[in-house]
C-alpha cells in the first residue's frame, strides 16, 4: 500500500496473467494509465507503471514492472483494454518502452522522425529538433 493505493510489483513476464486476473476476477475494468519512470543509476533502468480502476468497487491498483534498458519490452494490454492502444503509444515515444503485440506504435504527441525519447533523464531539455529547418533572417 502506498498513499491509499494497492501497489503490486511484478515481473515483466507475469504482466499479462496478472492484468488479466485483475480484470476478470477483481473487476478492474477501467485502464487508467500507463507510464514509465526512469532511474538511470539503477539496473534494470525503467519502471513501467500501470493504473487500473474498478467501476464496481471504486478502488485503484498500481502495477509496476521493471525492464532493462537493453530490452525494454513488455506485453501489450490492447487485448484486454482498447484504451491501452493510445496510452502505450505515448509511453513508447516518451520512454522507448516497446509493447509486444501493439501494432500501432507510431509517434503520437511527437512527430514522425523525432530522434530519441524525451522523457528519459539523459535527454537534455534544451535539445532542438526542428522539423522545418530554421530560416536565415537577413537584416
Amino acid at each position, binding site marked *: 500500500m*502506498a*498513499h*491509499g*493505493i494497492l501497489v503490486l510489483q511484478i515481473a515483466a513476464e507475469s504482466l499479462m496473467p496478472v492484468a488479466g486476473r485483475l480484470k476478470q476476477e477483481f473487476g478492474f*475494468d*477501467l*485502464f*487508467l*494509465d500507463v*507510464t514509465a*519512470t*526512469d532511474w538511470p543509476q539503477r539496473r534494470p533502468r525503467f519502471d513501467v*507503471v500501470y*493504473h487500473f*480502476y474498478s*467501476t464496481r468497487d*471504486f478502488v*485503484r491498483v*498500481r502495477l509496476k514492472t521493471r525492464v532493462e534498458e537493453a530490452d525494454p519490452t513488455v506485453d501489450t494490454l490492447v487485448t484486454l*483494454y*482498447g*484504451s491501452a*492502444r*493510445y*496510452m502505450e503509444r*505515448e509511453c513508447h515515444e*516518451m520512454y522507448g518502452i516497446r509493447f509486444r503485440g501493439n501494432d*500501432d506504435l*507510431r*509517434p*503520437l*504527441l*511527437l*512527430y*514522425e*522522425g523525432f530522434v530519441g525519447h*524525451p*522523457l528519459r533523464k539523459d*535527454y537534455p*531539455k534544451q535539445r532542438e529538433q526542428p*522539423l*522545418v*529547418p530554421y*530560416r*536565415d*533572417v*537577413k537584416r
Partner: protein
Amino acid sequence: MSLPPLTTLPNPIRPAFTKGLTPGSVIVNIGPSHPATHGTIQIVAEISGERVVRTDVHCGYLHRGFEKECESHTWHTLIPYVDRLNYCSALINDFAYCEAVEKLMGIELTPRCRHLRTLLAEYSRIADHLTCVAAALMEMGAMTAFLYLVTIRDYIYEHIADLTGARVTHSYGRIGGLARDLPDGWLQRLEEILDQMDTFVDRVHGLVDRNRIFIDRTRDVGVIGTTEAINWGFTGPILRSTGAPRDLRKDTPYLSYGELEFEIPVGIKGDNYDRYYVRMREIDESKHMIRQLIDMLQPGPISVDDRRCTLPDKQAVYTEIEALINHFKLIMEGPQVPAGEAYSAHEGANGELGFYLVSVGGGVPWKVHCRSPSFVHMGGVHRMLDGYQLADLVPTFGSINMIGGECDR
C-alpha cells in the same frame, strides 16, 4: 529569405491508412487547423459518399513538454504549468495537483480551504461546461445560445479574476492551501451570478432542448454504450451519458464532496444529445453544491500551519531571521517533499484527471505524470465517429470537449 517548396517539407504524421477499403471511397484530411473543430486536431478519414468508414485521429500539435519541464521546477513553481492543462477549468487542475503533493507530504487541509477549493472547483466546472455546450451549439449554427452561455461564462471569469488576478490561468492553488482569501463582497457577487445564470441557462433550454434541427443533428449520433465506453477509457460526462452513474465526487469522495448533497445526472443512450443534457444538468448540480458550500464556509485560516510548504507571514519575514530563512528556503529550494509516489485523481470537467507524482525527496519532482481525460478520449473517439455522416463529426467532436492543452500536454 526563401521558403523550401511545400512538397519537400516532411509530413509530421504518418496516417494509419492511405488506401480505402471499399471501392470508391476517398481519404480526406481534416485539420489540424479547421474552423469547425475547436482544438488543434487532425483527423484522417476514409469516406464513402458522405459516410465515414474509418478515422485515424492525430493529436500532439499543442505538445509543449509539460512533463519534462516539470522535472526542472520546484513543486511550487510548476503550478502555473498545471493551470495550462485544461485551460477552461484551470482551478480543478491546480487542486488535483496540490492534493497529490499534499498526499506525499501528509498534509491535512483546513476546513475553510477544503470548502473553498470545492466551491471553486464546482464554479470552474460550470465555466467549463458552459464553454463546451456553447462551442458545440455554435458549431451547429446556434449563435444566440452561444452568446447567452458565453455571457455567463465571462461573468464567471471576471469574477474569478477578482479573486485570483487572472481570467483563465489563475495559478491560485498552493500546496497546503490557497494563494489568498476571498475579497470583500465576493460571495454576494457569486449569488448574483448564479441567479443570472438561471435565466440564461433557462433560455438556452428553451431554445435548444426541443429544437428540431438540434435533435436531428444530435439524437442517435455518436452513440456509445457503457461497456464499450469503459473499454475505451471514457470517464466523466461521456461515461455518464451512457447511463452509468460513475462520478469520482460520489464514488471516492475527496475535498468536501462527502458532506454535500447532489445527484449524478445520467443519459439514456450515450449519444450527442445525452452528452449535451448531462452537461446542462451538471451545471444545475454544481450550482446546488455551490449554494450549500456558501452556507458551510466558516471564517478560519486558508493555509495549513506547516513550515514545509506554507510561506511565513510577510511581516515576520521582515522582522525575524527564522521566518526570512524559511521564506528563502521555500522559494529557492522548494518544499521538501518526502520520497515516494502518489496518484491522486479528481473529477475534472471532462473526466478523471489524475496526477502521478514520483519524489526522491527534495524540492524538485522526479516525475510528474498527468492522466488527462481528453488524451484518453482521443484514443477512443473513432468509436463515435465511424459509421456516421461526415457532417456529424462536428457535433460529435464538440460534445466530447477535447481540450488541446490537456490532451497534448
